[in-house]
């Protein structure tokens, strides 16, 4: 194939796999007739040419998943550009020919493969499903706990429960998101002691399974309510109990110039400054859901294009400066952020973040999230606040 290729699969109503910014995104869902199938999205991606993927097929029966993807890959292999590696990705092909023409090419190729060798027999689907059986859950009477006494005795536990745990389809259970975003470590970093510790907790409380997420956290997917308090105590001991999931400090951060040979600018210094400046958790809770994503170069490993606030480090004239984008999203309403204005000096980045947040706090309506406010009021108030009085930005 012309170049690397990434497929993302989402099996939930809310897209947590950033599937619209992958070469292929697959959404498993149940259609109006009650059948399970895939919506197939092609040609998304970030990096130097950010693109939101487009739907190439609204509904694909699961048995034909492989035959259909085979057709997509063959069309890409034969028609993708070979002359320039930056233009060799499928997103460039889809944009060049248009999604209608691309869909037609895929459908034509698919006629040769559909219903043949690549059609998955139901027995094979069932066999593979057998590897994903539900764990041996406790009955609801044994698993559940109202946790009322613990909440009253330990308000910090109540806050963590609200911020870092999610509803579970199994009665009596919760999903726990373990924050790897404490004040002292780089976002997503974990020490060997913490790794040993969290592995033991997975064995003790979550059927030995630990998942990592693209936003640089960990998930313990099956925690009985009655175990939550003990788990929280142990996570806190490990320095992994910070109740900041979904908040400003739950940022995605690439390693930047400190560790990466491709980077043009430092990023870890920004996460340090952000943690030092915005250290009031009540302020973070009041701000609500904010996705801050930081990349140290144009390759966009920090997914800055799809951050509600995105920051891209660049090097200009020997100086590290940072471009801000606002209004991106990697969720169901995936969108690419737009550039706020000229680049900001490194020592002014936290000042500008504070200004952007001030505008939101002043302008938001009841229950309005940061992203909704940006979408409603547009960029002008943010530009006025950041550039109207702020004269120290780079040229």
């Amino acid at each position, binding site marked *: 194939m*012309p170049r690397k290729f990434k497929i993302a699969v989402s099996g939930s109503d809310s897209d947590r796999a950033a599937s619209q910014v992958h070469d292929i995104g697959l959404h498993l869902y149940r259609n109006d007739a009650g059948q399970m199938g895939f919506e197939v999205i092609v040609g998304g991606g970030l990096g130097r040419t950010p693109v939101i993927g487009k739907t190439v097929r609204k509904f694909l029966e699961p048995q034909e998943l492989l035959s259909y993807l085979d057709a997509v890959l063959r069309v890409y292999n034969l028609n993708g550009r070979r002359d320039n590696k930056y233009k060799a990705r499928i997103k460039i092909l889809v944009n060049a020919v248009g999604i209608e023409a691309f869909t037609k090419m895929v459908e034509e190729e698919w006629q*040769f493969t559909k219903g043949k*060798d*690549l059609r998955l027999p139901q027995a*094979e689907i069932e066999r593979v499903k057998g590897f994903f059986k539900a764990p041996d859950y406790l009955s609801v009477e044994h698993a559940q706990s109202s946790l009322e006494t613990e909440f009253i005795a330990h308000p910090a536990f109540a806050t963590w429960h609200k911020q870092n745990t999610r509803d579970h389809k199994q009665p009596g259970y919760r999903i726990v998101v373990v924050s790897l975003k404490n004040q002292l470590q780089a976002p997503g970093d974990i020490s060997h002691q913490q790794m040993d510790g969290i592995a033991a907790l997975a064995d003790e409380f979550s059927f030995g399974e630990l998942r990592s997420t693209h936003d640089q956290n960990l998930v313990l997917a099956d925690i009985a309510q009655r175990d939550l308090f003990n788990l929280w105590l142990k996570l806190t001991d490990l320095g992994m109990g910070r109740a900041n999931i979904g908040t400003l400090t739950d940022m995605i951060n690439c390693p930047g110039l400190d560790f990466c040979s491709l980077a043009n600018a430092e990023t870890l210094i920004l996460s340090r400054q952000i943690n030092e400046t915005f250290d009031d958790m009540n302020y973070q809770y009041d701000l609500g859901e904010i996705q801050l994503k930081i990349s140290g170069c144009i390759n966009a490993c920090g997914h800055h294009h799809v951050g509600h606030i995105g920051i891209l480090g660049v090097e200009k004239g020997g100086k590290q400066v940072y471009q801000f984008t606002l209004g991106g999203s990697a969720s169901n309403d995936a969108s690419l952020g737009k550039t706020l204005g000229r680049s900001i000096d490194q020592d002014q980045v936290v000042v500008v973040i504070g200004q952007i947040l001030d505008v939101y706090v002043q302008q938001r309506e009841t229950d309005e999230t940061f992203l909704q406010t940006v979408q409603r009021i547009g960029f002008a108030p943010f530009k006025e606040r950041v550039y109207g009085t702020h004269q120290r930005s780079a040229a």
Partner: protein
Amino acid sequence: MALIKDQQLSLNHVATPDIRFADWLDDDLIKGESVLTNGADDLTCLLANASKLDMIAIEFETFADGRGFSMARLLRREGYQGEIRAVGDVAMDRIEFMHRVGFNAFELRDDQNVNEALTKLSEMSVHFQPSADGKGPAYMA
């Protein structure tokens, strides 16, 4: 340069043609029965003319250009029975895949070992993916 054809070392075979498909198409005077092609040629046109050819040599100019795989696969799918010869960057770790999509001859460089190539062609007995060789995935066996 050694040639492996139909899973054995070939000692008596037609040399790899130096007539490129585009020239063959344009010039009636050089209507031979074998051509050299690569991913840059018009595949639809090649498929339309394949029945006039005894041998189609597909060149892998670089490792990163995998169009030759799709070309061989589509030639076989359209019923082409002649020789499909892999030339150029015929990497050892890809010979088996070339064979599976429809190549039946492989031109090796002098620094490539014939026995190693022959081993590559037969060492895998099960596959995940069906291909032009008619072998189904392991779960269908």
